């Protein structure tokens, strides 16, 4: 699934980023690399999401959050 679909207060791991080189590198530079764990702090449909990654908080607009493929972390 993409991170736009993740629920608020859940943890995910980034699998892949589906975008052109520019955006991909910008995201990598801000810490969003494959394998990194991300906490989704808030997520409202159709809006930007707020995440926590490597200790800092980022806002991801819709266009970006739909390009980041993630998987949920195994939880009960």
């Amino acid at each position, binding site marked *: 699934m993409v991170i736009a679909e993740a629920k608020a207060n859940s943890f995910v791991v980034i699998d892949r980023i589906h975008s052109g080189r520019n955006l991909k590198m*910008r995201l990598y530079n801000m810490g969003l690399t494959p394998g990194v764990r991300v906490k989704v702090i808030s997520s409202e449909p159709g809006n930007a999401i707020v995440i926590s990654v*490597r200790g800092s*908080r980022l806002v*991801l*607009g819709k266009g970006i959050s739909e390009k980041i493929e993630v998987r949920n*972390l195994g*939880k009960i």
Partner: protein
Amino acid sequence: MDKKIKVALAGNPNSGKTTLFNELTGARHYVGNWPGVTVEKKEGGFKYGEENILLTDLPGIYSISPYTMEEIVTRKFIIEEKPDVILNIVDASNLERNLYLTIQLIEMGRPVVIALNMMDIVEKKGIGIDVEALSKKLKATVVPITASKMGNKGKLLDAVVETAKKSDGYYPIEVDYGQDIENKIVETHKLIDHLACLGRFNHRWLSLRVIEEDIEIMNLMGSGQKAYLDPENSHGERYEELIVKKKYEFINRLVDAVVIDKSRDKETVSDKIDKIAMNRYLGLPIFILIMMGVFAFTFDVVGNRLLDLVDVFFSEILANAAFDWLTGAGVSEWLISLVVEGIIGGVGGILVFLPNIATLFFAISILEDSGYMARVAFIMDRTMRRIGLSGKAFIPMVLGFGCNVPAIMSTRTLENKQDRMTAILINPFMSCSARLPVYTLFASAFFPRNKSMVVFSLYFLGIAVAVTVAFVFKRTFFKSEPIPLLIELPPYRIPTAKGIGIHVWERVKEFIVKAGTLIFAASIVIWFLLNYNFAGPAAFTDSFAASVGKFIAPMFTPLGFGNWRASLSLLTGVVAKEIIVSNMSIAYGAGAGSGASLADALSASFTSLSAYSFMVYVLLYIPCIGVISVIKKETGSWKWTGFSIVYQMTLAWVIAFGVYQIGGLFVG
């Protein structure tokens, strides 16, 4: 099927093994003793779907060494009974120690399924475990459970059954013990391979035990084999100990990779504040309230009170004192006029507004330094998208209320060129602090009871025009998909007095310098142009300035202020917007910039409506030189700089025209 799946349940003491055993077997289990020892043996059989499962509870152990009865019994069971699956219960809140046993169990060669217990405690502690990664690295299915609740019972038993069925193809992971020991393993294997009594053991496991000089294994081999290997390496370290160390190194790396320290992601105070500040419903209203508060604070509360004080100082105290002193000193009249009316009038007329400006910058500094500005980008993102820009483009707009020069420079954070160009070109519509003196002056003079409302309406008009123009630009000249928002939210900080002080002082200093140089010079020039013409000293209405003003004035008649003084002021406003007021102070000869009498003088040339239309024109028309040069610098293009001048002049004229003419219909 009659065939039973034999499952051995193994784990540390206090890992919840008993609870799990009871949950799986229900009341149907029997308790006995392991043969020959006083260790309790529990066994239970149950059906799961189509399968019959026989679950043997092994004693709680920390490792499988041959030192205690419990360990020996466990080892024996696994080697002799060869269970289809070893169900290893692991306490997730004590992962490292528990995994030590897990590794040992895996090395024995029977398939292992891990029940990761105490997940509820782990959650509470704020720790997360990447179960999938753990599974992969151990090559063993890991099922998270909370033994007391057993929500995942089905999942656990499915894993057991599935693993049991595939047990023939199972190859356990191998911990890397380092070159030295790995070589020894190969060596040892060659040495003992032929011994039939050792045939049923997993080879690698066996070799490791021989290297360790495991008592039980050594006994099996017979005393004669002890001479085979040296228990110590070349540094005098015992292999037995090295093997333990290597196991723990492996476990450390494993745990690092799969355990998530959520403390980095734990909710901070900033997060708590953001829950409200960036709330879907509350966010925008809160922001609007804050902005209104900023304006109220700047204009009403602080600004105007200080303004009156400064005004009185300049227009009465200083002006009169200078006049008296200079007259007393016998200074010639024209010089007195230059100093009192020109300089004190022009510069003082502007310094009067310093308190307002300082307060505005103070408020903006707080918004920036506290970290709130980043939230503003998020809050406004949705709205900005409707005009084709991202929330980030909103920040330069807010900064523009202070001064358009740094605001336009801040558009550098916009990655998309089209968005950037748009943001730059609409920024001058965000009414900067330099225009404030004009509004304050006219609003006080013509709308004394609705001062704030009037000023506010102008700011609002500026925003409305900016937004509309942006909308048009993004669909025409600067068409592009808006860049999706990607912005960091720094933690909220309480702005330091020092930080704010520095920001405000910088701006105030700039303003005073501007006043002391540009405006000072301009005031002198304007004074001269107003008091002289080709024939020498002249009355205002016959001066150079008047000629220029009268020449331009007709352009403004349809806007309601076709008089030469107003036109002249607008012209001087190109240098710096503050000069509009300075100019008027001098041109109306209104006793050293006193707000009050200037207001009276203005009434002669303006009506309320034309005053408003004048303010609208000032709001929208050409930006000052400072802004023009920054536009050129940031866009890198004379074409667009020229365009910004032309389109602003046109827009200003048209809108002011509309205001005056349409307003005229209502006012009559």
